[in-house]
């Protein structure tokens, strides 16, 4: 190892950093690197497949003799399965296999804990027949008491959902409540507020599901997943197979958003059906099952207290939060995230509350949109309380140079000075009032050590990159092509990408925005290793040292000797073998510029004060994701996050009937997702930061852009109408009620 110095950061703030990479590593790209392909606009490599309908997603896999699986689920919020009679179902035409989701000997005592809990699965020779057969199973249930509402579940006499004495788990308090309260009491201004957010379902358009085909003594699996390797490992350990006996392919995945890690119950059931019938089985969930049983973003109830001194400096933050992830946990909220006060000035207690509903699953920036909705509205409240511009107040309390630069960029782009200075005091067009709001965010997305990659150069000049991880729509495959092209002096379209197959080198699940930062350095290093092998072969031919050779603009050449230059393809003829392969493992992270990424969003809204309808007119989103590899797809990620965040802010809501314990809107009619007409004008700005945590400098981008949107919209609504909305989704009924309360307060 030799110590090297790199310059990291961005135009507004940079520093030198010493790193100690292994000698086999490629030179790290830093702030001063001039790159040809990285950071440009590169259309997706799988675009042509996707726009023509040629792309085969798991749902589209059709195999000869394939059966169709269907799961039978609990119709009750809580019930004991007293008896199961499958005789009639098994006699139905075309029925080939039936497996239970739990130990069959437990019939009589097995407790189902939510409407949608799995009971059994059947495979038949057509989807219609599988459906018919599931409907023919006769089950006797003994319904049990249940609770589906967060507040009800916290009451002392609530039915117990899981084991234990109470449905409330946690309160892992951090900080000293009394000390923080004392600080608040001594603050010159303080606010206290309660916020609520709703349950959101992931609602990827391709539902969860798999096709499992028996394959020799193992299985071949097509899965709609965010984790090719976690599906492989999950299924192999469940079935007692070796990892190599399970091959998982996920060439195209119709979205995930955090709900598609591991094989899931449906994956295990599908595999058991396939093995029982000894035939391929396709089991894709229905839209309704998708809402009920495979994950969601928990709701929240957050009590926040903030204080500031007379100069506008935050003095204390206190947050007590509750949330329900159904029968599962994971309902914490991320407060505070941005404004770092001393430990003695911060108190935080998070609790999970169990209810009889489908378990939560990580959803795009778990905990953050909830927490930021509360925290960034609280910041706004305190700013107005202090008589400060909300942006100025944030600048006073935010020490991150990246976000400070972003705040300035965004403010300029949206025209922040044009907003109404007094909330609700803007120029009105009849009942329509406009306002602007801002919210900041951060995310941790440096990636980690778990990835390998192979890059192969053929004698004919063909270049192929192999990496097993999946592309769930982020543009990951295109990232692979860009990195290899950069290193070899080629164009992305010259590179063949082979990804999303467990036979290829290991890659991580698409979670925590880590796929790119984890894999990119390994691919960079593999391309570098392959290039070195090509250079070694050429060095022999040209009688020079490999270090004298470069690859750029489609050529391989010796800079000091113009006679030694060949187009890449011709140069590859120097290889003695048919092909050479560069393989590499991901190295550990360097210290880097910062361990997290920064972002902020500005929103402009128009509120109809008579109907309560909110329209978001514009959103400016500024985001840091370390070094940007593909500008085009990065902007897509950002605007996609904004749209999903807007949908969360205004429309989406999993609505449970409390008396029946069932979801009433398990469809796309009444579970409302933002459509084209709800889409504002969006300006996505990627702030390129050479992060220096790895040889590429990339950080992740998947999650952060969804975080601050709801908070920015809420703050904009307040700015427009002078009334704050403390609860998501911010639907017309809530706006009308809040405006009426304000009128009432005025006249009272």
């Amino acid at each position, binding site marked *: 190892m030799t110590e090297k110095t790199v310059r990291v950061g961005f135009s507004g703030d940079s520093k030198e950093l010493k790193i100690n990479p292994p000698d086999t590593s490629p030179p790290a790209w830093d702030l001063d690197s001039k790159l040809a392909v990285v950071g440009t606009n590169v259309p997706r490599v799988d675009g042509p497949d996707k726009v023509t309908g040629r792309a085969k997603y798991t749902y589209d896999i059709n195999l000869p003799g394939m059966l169709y699986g269907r799961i039978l689920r609990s*119709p009750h919020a809580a019930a004991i399965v007293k008896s199961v009679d499958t005789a009639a179902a098994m006699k139905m035409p075309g029925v080939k296999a039936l497996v239970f989701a739990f130990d069959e000997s437990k019939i009589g005592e097995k407790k189902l804990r939510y*409407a949608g809990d799995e009971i059994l699965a059947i495979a038949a020779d057509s*989807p*219609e027949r599988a*459906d*018919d057969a599931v*409907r023919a199973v006769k089950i006797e249930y003994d319904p049990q008491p249940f609770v589906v509402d967060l507040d009800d579940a916290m009451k002392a006499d609530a039915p117990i959902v899981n084991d234990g004495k109470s449905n409330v788990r946690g309160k892992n308090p951090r900080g000293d409540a009394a000390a923080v309260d004392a600080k608040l009491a001594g603050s010159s201004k303080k606010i206290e507020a309660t916020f609520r957010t709703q349950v959101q379902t992931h609602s990827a358009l391709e539902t969860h599901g798999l096709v499992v085909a028996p394959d020799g003594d193992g299985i071949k699996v097509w899965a709609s997943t965010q984790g090719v390797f976690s599906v492989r490992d999950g299924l192999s350990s469940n079935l007692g197979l070796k990892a190599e006996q399970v091959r998982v392919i996920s060439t195209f995945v119709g979205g995930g958003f955090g709900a598609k890690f591991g094989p899931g119950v449906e994956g295990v059931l599908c595999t058991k059906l396939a093995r029982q019938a000894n035939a391929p089985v396709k089991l*894709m969930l*229905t*839209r*309704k099952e998708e809402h009920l049983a495979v994950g969601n973003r928990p709701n929240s109830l957050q009590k926040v207290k903030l204080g500031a001194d007379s100069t506008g400096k935050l003095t204390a933050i206190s947050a007590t939060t509750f949330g329900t992830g159904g029968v599962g946990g994971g309902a914490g909220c991320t407060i505070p995230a941005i404004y770092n006060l001393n430990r003695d000035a911060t108190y935080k207690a998070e609790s999970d509350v169990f209810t009889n509903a489908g378990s939560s699953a990580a959803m795009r920036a778990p905990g953050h949109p909830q927490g930021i909705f509360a925290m960034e509205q609280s910041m706004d409240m305190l700013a107005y309380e202090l008589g400060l511009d909300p942006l100025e107040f944030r600048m006073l309390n935010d020490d991150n140079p990246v976000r400070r630069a972003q705040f300035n960029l965004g403010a300029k782009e949206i025209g922040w000075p044009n907003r109404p200075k007094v909330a609700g005091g803007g120029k009105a067009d009849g*009942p329509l009032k406009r306002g602007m709001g801002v919210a900041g965010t951060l995310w941790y997305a440096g990636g980690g050590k778990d990835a390998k990659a192979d890059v192969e150069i053929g004698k004919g000049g063909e270049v192929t990159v192999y990496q097993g991880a999946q592309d769930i729509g982020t543009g990951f495959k295109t990232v692979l092509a860009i990195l290899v092209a950069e290193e070899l002096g080629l164009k992305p379209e010259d590179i063949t990408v082979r990804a999303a197959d467990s036979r290829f080198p290991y890659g991580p699940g698409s979670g925590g925005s880590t796929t790119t930062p984890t894999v990119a350095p390994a691919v960079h290093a593999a391309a570098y290793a392959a290039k070195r092998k090509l250079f070694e072969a050429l060095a022999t031919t040209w009688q020079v040292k490999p270090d004298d050779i470069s690859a750029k603009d489609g050529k391989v050449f010796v800079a000091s000797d113009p006679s030694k230059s060949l187009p890449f393809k011709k140069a590859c003829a120097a290889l003695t073998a048919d092909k050479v392969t560069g393989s590499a493992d991901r190295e550990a992270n360097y210290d880097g510029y910062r361990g997290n990424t920064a972002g902020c969003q500005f929103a402009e809204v128009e509120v109809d004060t*008579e*109907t*309560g*309808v909110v*329209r978001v007119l514009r959103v400016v989103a500024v985001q840091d994701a370390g070094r940007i590899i593909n500008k085009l797809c990065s902007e897509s990620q950002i605007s996609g996050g904004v749209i999903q965040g807007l949908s969360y802010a*205004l*429309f989406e809501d999993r*609505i449970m*009937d*409390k*008396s*029946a314990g*069932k979801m*009433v*809107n*398990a469809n796309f*009619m*009444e579970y*409302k997702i*933002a*459509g*084209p*007409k*709800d889409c504002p004008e969006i300006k996505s700005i990627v702030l390129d930061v050479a992060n220096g945590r790895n040889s590429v400098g990339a950080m992740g981008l998947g999650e952060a852009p969804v975080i601050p949107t709801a908070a920015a919209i809420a703050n904009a609504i307040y700015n427009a109408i002078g009334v704050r909305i403390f609860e998501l989704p911010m*639907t*017309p*009924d809530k706006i*009308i*009620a809040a405006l*009426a309360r304000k009128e009432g307060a005025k006249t009272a």
Partner: protein
Amino acid sequence: MSSLPVFDYVNATSPAEAMGQLGAGWSEAALYAGGVDLLDLMKERLYEPKKLVNIKTAPSLKYIKVENGEVRIGPLVTLAEIAAHPELQKSHPALARAAGKAATPQIRNLATIGGNLCQRPRCWYFRSEDFPCMRKGGEKCFAKEGENRYHAIFTEGEPCVIVHPSAAGVALVAFGAQLKIASSSGERTVDIEKFFVRPKDNVRRENVLGPKDLITEIVIPASAAGMASAYIKIREKQSYDWPLADVAVVAKLSGANVEACRIVLGSAAPVPHRATEAEEFLKGKPLNEENAARAGELAVKDASPLEQNAYKVPLFKTVVRRTLLALKETKAS
């Protein structure tokens, strides 16, 4: 995903042929027009007719004729065709707009106006097989005490609190349309207001049709010609969504004054709801901001909202007022 139940299928080439295929009970056969509502109910297994009788193969049921101010519409005309009809857009803008604001572009190309009037309610308890509600023969109306933000606000004496889903119905009631209904025993004409039934009269159906009845024509009388009309729909989500509130107004204006008018509220009651007191109030009065606002108040005077939908009361006040004032811009030409 969820498969349809098994059924037989027949193409009827004439109304008579269609009627010949229908049975004495609803479960025997169903008329199949655009199929949008039917397939939806069948996929959810809320309805399993043994036979579908396709009437799109009966060309005599599809036309729009405007003669001497009278408009006659065949039941198979789609919402898209009504929305795009140049003459209706001018002469009956409330109907064209109601059709054009309903559903999605794809659905409007399939959905017929006949089917739109006959579609079943969108109450989420009714639409889900998980809830054995009163309208399906069960014992209770889940919405009354349950999740009722989108339900009716005129609920006095009603055992079930659905809102009627048909956008076309709202406009057609405002125009005082008549429906021609044929059955094997002959043809009758029903005033559209009498077509819709309230839950207190029959909690299992939303209209007077029997299983052997066929709507053969929708007639907007010539008396409506030359009247001004307007329709406004307020929705939570701007890409397709059901209305939180929609209102149609048809009025005879003379100069600045309202000579007579009909005001109809959709998504407010189990049937398209006429605001008769507001209509009376406006008679002979100038159409101005103040009178429109007063009419809005009168329109919701008798509302008895549920726990979650009190917001609809001020909302309808606004929408009634706005729709009345919009008459000025959309005066028939």
